[in-house]
């Protein structure tokens, strides 16, 4: 094996310039592919993270009817059984957050708008999405607070500021009218435009009073210790909870439309990737083909000396894999610092582009993902490609007739 490896390795450097050009093409393609994927995955991660933080959480326990008909009438009571159940999985659950939310009409003197009014436990909610850092004006909510924490986008739409009073009007539990005047005690920047333009927080007690839904919740948000085990944890809770009354949903089920959109968007990137992979494949194939053609008589010599076809095929195969491995590793090494830089300093979009992205409800920034899968997926794809290309010389070596290549 050492002999074969030595021969393959030294053969690579017989034509240094050609080998370096091929390695560079692999490097460049891997670098570009990593950049594209990192940017795309980074945007998705950010989007999902924001949606999970501000909206759905990883797992929600709801009333069994709520998902089909999200009405205040289909709320649930956080009873002892559920508490016991959640305590049983204490090691797998980081924390849980109760919420009561419904749509309301919110009005100022001149403007009225439909918005989501969310009743929260301020301290527990802080664990989920530490909004204190994003407070633009005023203060964060306190337990039992009667004031409102309003999203900055909505405040701008309503042209309302700190200390202003908002009129809230909605439907309460079992058809009661929910109405009240509430002062704005804080303004928070919720980052994701779709949420930032439509959200008001108030303390859970105040919300339950407002909706006349004492002790009731629309959902309990459960945050797992390990978000990667969300589905397993949701499955366990679902198996044990009384399914006649409760429904357990994961963020993937709740954000189904967003995930579909991401998959669709990913298809466009994949087309670009395929073009890159084709470029890599042709470059590599050209080199491997040249390396074969110019060494036909050498192959005849090796056959004559008694080297078996399988060994010669292994040498040719290793040559293609070596070029790829060097190219892939170099591509990854070059891309790591670039990805790391943009991971910590996302590209901030401005002007028309920022506006266009904002209209879709997304943050106008291009964050990069530093997830290891961005790197090793490229390595694997290009390696599989090189293995496929490496099979060509293997095939040729097994088909080669000594007398054809000797003369």
């Amino acid at each position, binding site marked *: 094996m050492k002999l074969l490896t030595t021969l393959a390795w030294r053969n690579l450097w017989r034509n240094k310039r050609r080998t370096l050009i091929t390695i560079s093409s692999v490097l460049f393609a891997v670098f570009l592919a990593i950049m594209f994927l990192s940017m795309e995955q980074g945007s998705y991660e950010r989007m999902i993270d924001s949606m999970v933080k501000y909206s759905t959480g990883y797992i929600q326990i709801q009333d069994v009817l709520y998902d089909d008909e999200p009405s205040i009438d289909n709320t649930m009571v956080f009873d002892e059984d559920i508490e016991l159940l959640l305590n049983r999985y204490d090691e797998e659950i980081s924390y849980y957050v109760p919420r009561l939310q419904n749509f309301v009409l919110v009005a100022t003197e001149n403007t009225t708008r439909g918005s989501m009014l969310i009743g929260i436990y301020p301290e527990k909610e802080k664990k989920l999405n530490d909004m204190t850092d994003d407070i633009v004006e005023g203060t964060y909510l306190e337990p039992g607070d009667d004031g409102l924490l309003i999203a900055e986008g909505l405040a701008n739409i309503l042209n309302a500021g700190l200390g202003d009073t908002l009129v809230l009007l909605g439907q309460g539990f079992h058809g009661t009218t929910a109405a009240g005047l509430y002062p704005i005690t804080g303004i928070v920047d919720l980052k994701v435009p779709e949420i930032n333009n439509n959200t008001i927080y108030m303390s859970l007690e105040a919300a339950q009073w407002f909706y006349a839904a004492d002790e009731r919740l629309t959902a309990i948000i459960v945050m797992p210790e390990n978000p990667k085990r969300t589905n397993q944890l949701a499955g366990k809770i679902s198996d044990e909870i009384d399914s006649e009354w409760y429904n357990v949903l994961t963020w993937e089920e709740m954000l189904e439309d967003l995930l579909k959109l991401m998959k669709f968007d990913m298809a466009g990137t994949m087309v670009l990737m395929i073009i890159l992979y084709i470029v890599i494949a042709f470059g590599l194939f050209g080199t491997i083909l040249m390396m074969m053609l110019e060494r036909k008589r050498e192959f005849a010599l090796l056959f*004559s000396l008694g080297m078996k076809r399988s060994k010669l095929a292994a040498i040719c195969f290793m040559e293609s894999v070596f070029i790829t491995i060097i190219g892939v590793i170099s591509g990854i090494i070059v891309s790591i610092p670039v990805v790391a830089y943009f991971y910590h300093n996302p590209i901030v979009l401005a002007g028309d582009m920022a506006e266009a992205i904002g209209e879709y409800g997304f943050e106008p920034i291009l964050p990069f993902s530093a997830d290891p899968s961005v790197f090793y997926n490229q390595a694997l794809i290009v390696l599989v490609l090189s293995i496929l290309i490496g099979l060509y010389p293997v095939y040729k070596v097994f088909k080669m007739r000594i007398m054809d290549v000797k003369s």
Partner: protein
Amino acid sequence: MKTVIKTTDLTKIYNSSVAPVKAVDKVNLEFGEGEFTAIVGPSGSGKTTFLNLIGGLDKPTEGHVMIDDTDISNMKESKLFDFRLRNIGFVFQSYNLIPVLTAKENVSFIMLLQKESKAKMEKRAVEMLEQVGLSEKVDVRPSKLSGGQQQRVAVARALASKPKFVLADEPTANLDTESAFNLLDIMSRLNKEENITLIFSTHDQRVINRARRVITLVDGAVSKDETFDR
């Protein structure tokens, strides 16, 4: 003298698109242990084809090649590779060495394929390079050697694994007079010292003058078989 190679009605016909070509025509020959034979003849007389057939590089259309008691004419390819590795040494006119290996590695190459121990292999390679006068060039790659030196490395490699016989296809064709004489001196000496059978195909009178047996092929058939006391 023990017979190493025996051919019986050895025939090779190439099916050219125009008309079949009989490159070797019913050749019956025996080569004894330690012989120094030159196969001569004009271009196209079948010298190289004959060497390819007895070296197991090509299959005969008819007839047989016996090496000791083994018929290699119909041997399976995988067995033939192994047979060549253990029994036959080759020296070609050009493309003789593996360019990415040093002189010592080239000489060790066959022994490496034979899975000899590293110590034995290195000792024998250095010894053979000394015998061909290249002890100073042990770690030099072929591109840094002259044509004559490259052929000497090829001879050292062919003999290093002590094969039953060595086939040399026009080994002096690309060499100047001094290098050719030098190579022939070495091969003659090793032929005598190691008692290895040498079979050359050649046009070169310098080789013919050294050979103790000269076989002339014309149109693939043996036209003359002479022995000399040299």
